[in-house]
């Protein structure tokens, strides 16, 4: 067999690629359920962190089922609609004007958790923000990112960034103002604000935009008094 002939080379390459494709497809399929479980637990951990509950991945499911009493989608009119809030991907559901809401019960008090989605410097940002039952005062927040710069933009995942959100108000004089993320030392007129990350300006602005844009869709739900 002449190993340098064109026919041999082409056949060799084709067979190799097919074999590799089969092996990879098989691996991916057989590990899919484990990966899905990890991703779900990661999501539960994020949701729980927004109400100041920090649990390990293996305890996330039990804790989530205990604290989260209800999960539903709301539409652009603020009305509940059918759907699986947990499985809903914010990117797709926001585009369809459907907004996931998780209702948690923390020490007898009702907290509303809402999903956030936006863009940072290098890739997507997402997070969860919880409100007290006045549907105005922030109870807690948690942010995640796909690939922000470590040490700079990536610092949005730390508690020192998310903790100051607690106690801030979304509405001023019954008007939706969101919460601004400003350069440390600056302030924002007419709305509540928290400090951004020094050196992570674009990521901080991304968080600012994310909160404004994501929560805008929730306004009808937050201002309606009926459940």
């Amino acid at each position, binding site marked *: 067999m002449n*190993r*340098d002939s064109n026919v*041999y*080379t082409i056949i*060799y*390459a084709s067979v*190799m*690629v097919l074999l*590799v494709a089969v*092996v*990879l497809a098989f*691996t*991916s399929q057989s*590990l899919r359920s*484990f*990966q899905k479980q*990890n*991703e779900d*637990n*990661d999501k539960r951990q994020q949701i729980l962190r927004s109400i100041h509950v920090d649990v390990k*991945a293996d305890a996330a499911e039990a804790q989530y089922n205990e604290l989260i009493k209800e999960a539903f989608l709301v539409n652009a009119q603020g009305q509940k609609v059918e759907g699986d809030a947990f499985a809903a991907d914010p990117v797709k559901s926001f585009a369809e004007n459907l907004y996931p809401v998780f209702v948690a019960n923390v020490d007898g008090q009702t907290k509303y958790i809402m999903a956030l989605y936006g863009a940072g410097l290098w890739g997507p940002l997402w997070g969860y923000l919880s409100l007290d039952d006045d549907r105005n005062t922030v109870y807690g927040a948690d942010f995640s990112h796909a*690939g922000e710069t470590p*040490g700079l933009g990536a610092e949005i995942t730390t508690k020192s960034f998310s903790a100051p959100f607690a106690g801030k108000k979304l509405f001023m004089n019954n008007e939706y103002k969101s919460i601004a993320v400003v350069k440390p030392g600056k302030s924002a007129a007419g709305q509540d604000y928290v400090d951004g990350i020094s050196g992570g300006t674009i990521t901080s602005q991304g968080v600012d935009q994310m909160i404004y844009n994501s929560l805008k869709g929730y306004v009808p739900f937050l201002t309606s008094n009926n459940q």
Partner: protein
Amino acid sequence: MALLSNKNKEVLTSPLSRNNPVIVQMLGVCSALAVTSKLEPSIVMGLSVTAVMAFANVIISLLRNTIPNRIRIIVQLVVVAALVTIVSEVLKAFAYDVNKQLSVFVGLIITNCILMGRLEAFALGNGPWESFLDGIGNGLGYGIILVIVGFFRELFGSGTLLGIQVVPQAFYDLGYVNNGLMILPPMALIVVAAIIWVHRSRNKELLEEN
């Protein structure tokens, strides 16, 4: 043929010290700097590279008499890329948190020059068993350096090892402070340099004349 003849022992152990891929051949330094700010990802990265290298070496060695010469680099890359993808999927399924910390660096094992170097230099010219030992040896040689660097960076940078606090609170009360610089990439370079310094002063034959 003895499974561990003298030559095979040499193949397995020489990359651990005198022929270490990182501190003697200066290969794979990039990822050694990037993932070593904590001990756990360093260990996982070392094991992942060892697994990929051992299996890639064996596969290429088995195929070495069939691979068309003109596309041999492509064949090597496909084998390595497939193995790395499998490792990445396995980590996602069973070590999700570590996988998140390693992020892109698992995928970048594909571009680790140690791998291509061993495939070209060793697996294409040797049998599967020797190639397997060579892969294990070089992978561990790489992993050892990562673990040493990760150990010092986590210890001095965060005061923890594998996430467990080891520097006692009494030290902090006396005014001891974690060195934040250790977490940043430049200190990885300096720690690697310090290892090379110690290593060369103990192995005089490695010193370059100038």
